Structure formats: C-alpha cells, structure tokens
C-alpha cells in the first residue's frame, strides 16, 4: 500500500513537471534574441523598450530577449555545432570571421545604405556582404581617469609615446595610485596585447602575418614593454584576481589611472560613480608611428540564415535600424551609432570623441587578433601576456608559445 502511494506520488510529480513544461510554450511567433548582455545592462533596457514598441505594433509577435552569462561564446559555439542557431544573436566583433556562414547577408536591407563605412574593414567581405546590424561603431583608446592625471599634473594630450606614458604612470604610482588596472581574471592580459600589437607592426609586417608568416621582433618588443611595466610595478597588485568589474570600480573611485579596455568599461565605471571624469586617448605606437585608435564591430546582431522566422527577424532589425531607435541603442552604450543617419549621446566620452575622432585624423586600426591572427589565437594572447605580467615566463618564452601556436592554428585554419 505504502509503495503504491510512493508510485502515485512519483507519477503525480512527473505529470506536474510535464504540465509546467507545456505551459512554458507561448502562442504566436516568438523571436529568440540572444543579447549577450547582463539582465540589467543599459543596452538591455533599451532593447526591452524597443521590443515592447515593436510587439505593440505587431500583435502576436514576441521578442524573447535572452540575457547572457559569462560563457556566451561557449554557449554559441555549442548551439552552432548543434545546428540550433538563435533567430537573432550578438556577434561580439566576429560577424564576418566566425559567424558569417551561419548568418543571413543583410546588405540588401533598406537600412544598409546607412551602414557606417568605418565598419567595412571589419564587417564586409570581398563580395560586399555583411552579416550583422551594428548598434554601435566601436572606437576605443587608452582609457584614463582625468581626475587622477590632473592630480599628478599630467595632461593626457601630452601622452603620445610609450615613454610619455611610462613617465605619467610613474608619477601616478608616486602618488599612491595604481597606474594600470588590468583584469587578470577576465582576460585583461589579452586586451593589453590587443591594444599594443597594432602599433608594434609595420604595414609590411602585417602583410606577412596575414599571409601566415609570423614576424618575431615586433611581438618581442610588445612583450618587453609589458615586462618593463611589471618590473616597475605599474600593474594593479590584485591583477591575478581582478575582474573587469574590479577595474571599473578602481577607475570610478580614482584608485587607478589607466586601463586597456573597450569603452563599455567607461560606461560601467560611470554607473559606479556618475561624477567621475573618464576619457580615452589614442594608443601610442611602439614603432614610433602616430598614435592610433582601435575600432570596429562590437555590439552587432546577426540573423540565423536557417531560422524559421528569418523574414520577421529582418523586419525587427529594420525597426531597430530606424534613426530614433538606432540612436537610442547607441546612446545606451555611450558609443557612436553604427548607422550614419542616427545620432547618439556619448556621455562621458563626448570630449574624447570631439578631440580625437570627429575630424578623422587619428588612424583607426582593427582589433589585432581578429584580422591578423588565426582563429583560436586569442587564448594564446591571453596566456602568454599573462605569464609575462605574473613573472611566470620571460618575454622570450612567451614569444615561443605565441609563434608555435600561430603556426599550428594557421595551418589548421587554412
């Protein structure tokens, strides 16, 4: 009798679970939108507002905005491998090189004529196709805390070489403030290398790299510079355990002066302290050329070419690409819109934009690893630079690892 009761209880619970399962399904058409954003991000709020407006105008359509955890990339890799591609997905700078074979080309959409040509190098292929709607045009430099630099008597505009930078960092350190905040826990070493590398190689050497021939000396120079900052103790003491959030907090509270990160870092830091004055300056070049900015695709969204709701997803993108919507979305991340017919509020970064970007004289270089290194090299960039910062490896040892992985991965991808 007792065992029958147990069996009945088990059956009831399973039936309840199955009922709950079926109740989760909704009627009408639902677009799965993998945002890649945390659930309370400012851009997420902007997407929620835009989605509500779209749903109100299109009865029966539901935009399912899915927030991401920190393993978004791994999640997407698994889903692509399984053939379960979301209707709309964040391409985080890889719409062309990684995701294009899974995405629908969008160059014939009504908004395509307003696609910012600055993004062409990163997002458009030789056939003139591009595969994502760019919310913003990512332009990044060396992030600084103006209050800290002012305190130690440094004008950020005077930093045009790495010697200038090191001198400024030494003054910052003498004032008891961390000169360089890097997130060792969140691949901060890779970002540091990604920022320095475009200025370490000449155009000819970059051509060699793109052809699959690794050029040693520039990367050695890069790692030597990284090591010299370690020897001068310019990195944050908690480098190994620091997350991006810790870097944002340090910048916002005036506990750090410089960071090598995309501008979303500024947006995060101002959430912690709305009164902080942050900006970015062009990245000095190791070769002695002019300082440069780094830019390209970041917040961009592609559509599954095999999705059942492709036409509806295209219609939703058309809605997002309207000047008012595109401007609001770009304002949420404090970036320049990806559409030339939209305008945005740049917030804390307006001054830097006016000074370095508006007139177009500062060269804009692409993210180094995406263009000049084979797929899979990001991890090597992170671990090799990290090993130099933490003193686990000399630059020569780290260089050997980079060179070896470059050859191996280039061979695999070609």
């Amino acid at each position, binding site marked *: 009798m*007792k*065992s029958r009761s*147990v069996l009945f*209880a*088990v059956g009831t*619970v*399973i039936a*309840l*679970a*199955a009922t*709950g*399962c079926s109740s*989760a399904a909704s009627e009408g058409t639902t677009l799965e939108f*993998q945002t*890649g*954003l*945390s*659930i*309370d*991000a400012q*851009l997420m709020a902007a997407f929620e507002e835009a989605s509500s407006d779209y749903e109100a105008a299109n009865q029966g359509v539901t935009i*399912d905005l*899915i*927030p*991401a*955890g*920190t*393993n*978004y990339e*791994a*999640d997407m890799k*698994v*889903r692509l*491998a*399984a*053939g*379960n591609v979301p209707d709309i997905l964040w391409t*985080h700078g890889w719409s062309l090189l990684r995701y294009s074979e899974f995405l629908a080309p969008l160059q014939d959409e009504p908004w395509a004529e307003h696609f910012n040509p600055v993004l062409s190098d990163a997002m458009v292929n030789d056939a003139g196709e591009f595969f994502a709607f760019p919310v913003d045009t990512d332009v990044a430099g060396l992030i600084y805390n103006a209050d800290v630099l002012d305190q130690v008597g440094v004008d950020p505009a005077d930093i045009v070489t790495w010697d200038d930078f090191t001198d400024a960092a030494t003054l910052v350190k003498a004032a008891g403030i961390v000169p360089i905040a890097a997130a060792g826990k969140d691949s901060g070493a890779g970002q540091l290398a990604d920022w320095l590398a475009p200025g370490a190689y000449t155009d000819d050497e970059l051509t060699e790299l793109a052809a699959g021939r690794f050029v040693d000396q520039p990367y050695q120079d890069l790692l030597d510079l990284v090591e010299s900052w370690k020897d001068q103790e310019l990195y944050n003491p908690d480098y190994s355990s620091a*997350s*991006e*959030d810790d870097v944002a*907090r340090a910048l*916002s*509270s005036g506990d750090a002066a410089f960071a090598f990160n*995309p501008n*979303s870092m500024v*947006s*995060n830091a101002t*959430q*912690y*302290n*709305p009164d902080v004055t942050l900006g970015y300056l062009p990245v000095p070049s190791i070769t002695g050329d002019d300082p440069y900015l780094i830019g390209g695709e970041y917040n961009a969204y592609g559509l599954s070419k095999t999705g059942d709701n492709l036409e509806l997803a295209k219609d939703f993108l058309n809605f997002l690409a309207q000047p008012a919507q595109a401007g609001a979305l770009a304002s949420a991340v404090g970036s320049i819109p990806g559409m030339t017919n939209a305008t945005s509020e740049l917030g804390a970064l307006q001054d830097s934009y006016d000074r370095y970007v508006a007139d177009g004289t500062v060269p804009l270089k692409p993210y180094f690893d995406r263009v000049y290194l084979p797929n899979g090299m990001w991890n090597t960039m992170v671990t090799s630079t990290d090993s130099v910062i933490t003193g686990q490896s000399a630059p020569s040892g780290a260089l050997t690892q980079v060179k070896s992985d470059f050859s191996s991965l280039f061979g695999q991808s070609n």
Partner: protein
Amino acid sequence: MITKLGRPAKILLAAGLLAIVVLQLLPFYVSITTSLKERTDLSSTWLPPLDGVFLGNFMSAITDGNILQSILNSAIVTGVSTILVCFLGAMAAYPLARRLTTMNKAVGALILALIMIPPLSILVPLYTMLTQMQAVNTYWGIIAVMVSTHLPLSIFFYTAFMRSLPISVEEAATVDGASAFQTFFLVVLPVLKPVTATVAILTGVSTWNEYALSSFILTDPAIRTIAPSIASFFSAQSSNLGAASAASLLAVLPVLIAYLFLQRYFIKGMVAGSEK
C-alpha cells in the same frame, strides 16, 4: 571509543571549530554586505552598509532576475530528479546485487565506468540530441539529463548496500509466494532508507547547485534554474554584483529552511554506511 579531553585540548578544539565556522560564514557575510549596498557605494565589501540599507538589489533580483520563478524551477527539477534517481537506481541495482551472473557483473562494471565520464565532455552531442528531441528549455529535458548523469552513482550505492543485506528475508518472502516485484517493493525497499537518504542528499544538492550543463540547456528565463539565473547578472560587458548577491541569498533560503527542519536526516544520510 570516546576519550575524555583536558581543558586546554577542549579550548583548542573549540577554537579550531570556531575558525571553521567563521570561514564558512565569511562568504555569506560578504554576500549580505554586497547585496545591501547601492552600486554607487564603493566602500569595502568587508564593511556593512554604513549609509543605510539598500533593498533595491533584492527588488532587481526578483523583477529583473526572476529569481523566485528560478527557485520554483530548481525545486521542480531537483524534486523530480531526486525521486527518479532514487527509484530507478534502487530498481536497477536489485538484480545487479542479487543475480551475480557474468552479464550482470559486466553491466555493473559498465555503469561504474559511466561515473568516470565528465558530463561536459559529451556536451555537444548531448545538446544536439536534446535539440532534435526539442528538449532544450524544457523541464523534462533537464530532468532527463540530471537523472542520467546521477543514476550511475546511485546504482553503485544501492548495489553495494543491497549486497550487505541478508538474503534470507527475501528467500522467506519467496517461499511465502511473493513475486520478484513484490519482494522488491514490500521487503527490500523499506530497508533501503539509510542509503536512500545518502543518494537523495547527494543527488538533491548536486542538482540544486548544477550550473555547467544547465547554463547550456536552460537559456529561457521562464525555465532557468537558480545557478544560470544568477549568472545572467554577469556578461562580457558588465555585471551587477549587488543584485547577483541578493539573488544568491534568496536562493539559499529554501535550502536553509529545509536543512533546519531536516537536519537530523541530513546528518544520518551523510554518515549512513560509515558505521557497523
């Protein structure tokens, strides 16, 4: 054998236990201070909220993070998975424990071998299969995965425990005319309580806390369990530690309450089999 301890030894023991308790409670303390501060409060996480308690993080955990729904989801997934693991584990173990044929020994070894396979190593084929079965973002999909991954250990425990039981009781039941199923349900099952408690606790705790597979299989906020839900406060671009801490604390409450009421069974279950 219990040895009487001297006063210095008792003090030393108490100090050691106190240190362990403090270490265990530290993460909770940091979570509490973090969850009660505004984002703009940049004071040390070790300090309590000196500028007044801020409950906005808890509101965010409930409204943005949908944490209450996630707790319910976790309860459903954990409850059903644990019951199935115990029930199916015991049933599968019975013939393996009582019919020592070559085939059964081989099956037992095979099940034992399954324990050695790291679940993440089969992620892509598993996810592909679940996609084809339309089991992604469903309760039954994640329950099937949880049951499959926990069954081998459960069968191993039940088999070992059943072999230690005297077979004469079952033989007596057979002589009295009981079928194999009747013997199992009416004679064997009632004496499996100690090992069932162990299996239930191991499966329940592991499923409640599961993140590695759930984060891939459950992406829909309506179906997400607790761990992936809390992770949604973190992304490559930004994170909200205050709301994540608040969500974690809310998620701990049901387990804490359950533990307070069921402490006796938890301890019994954990030490079952360690005494003769």
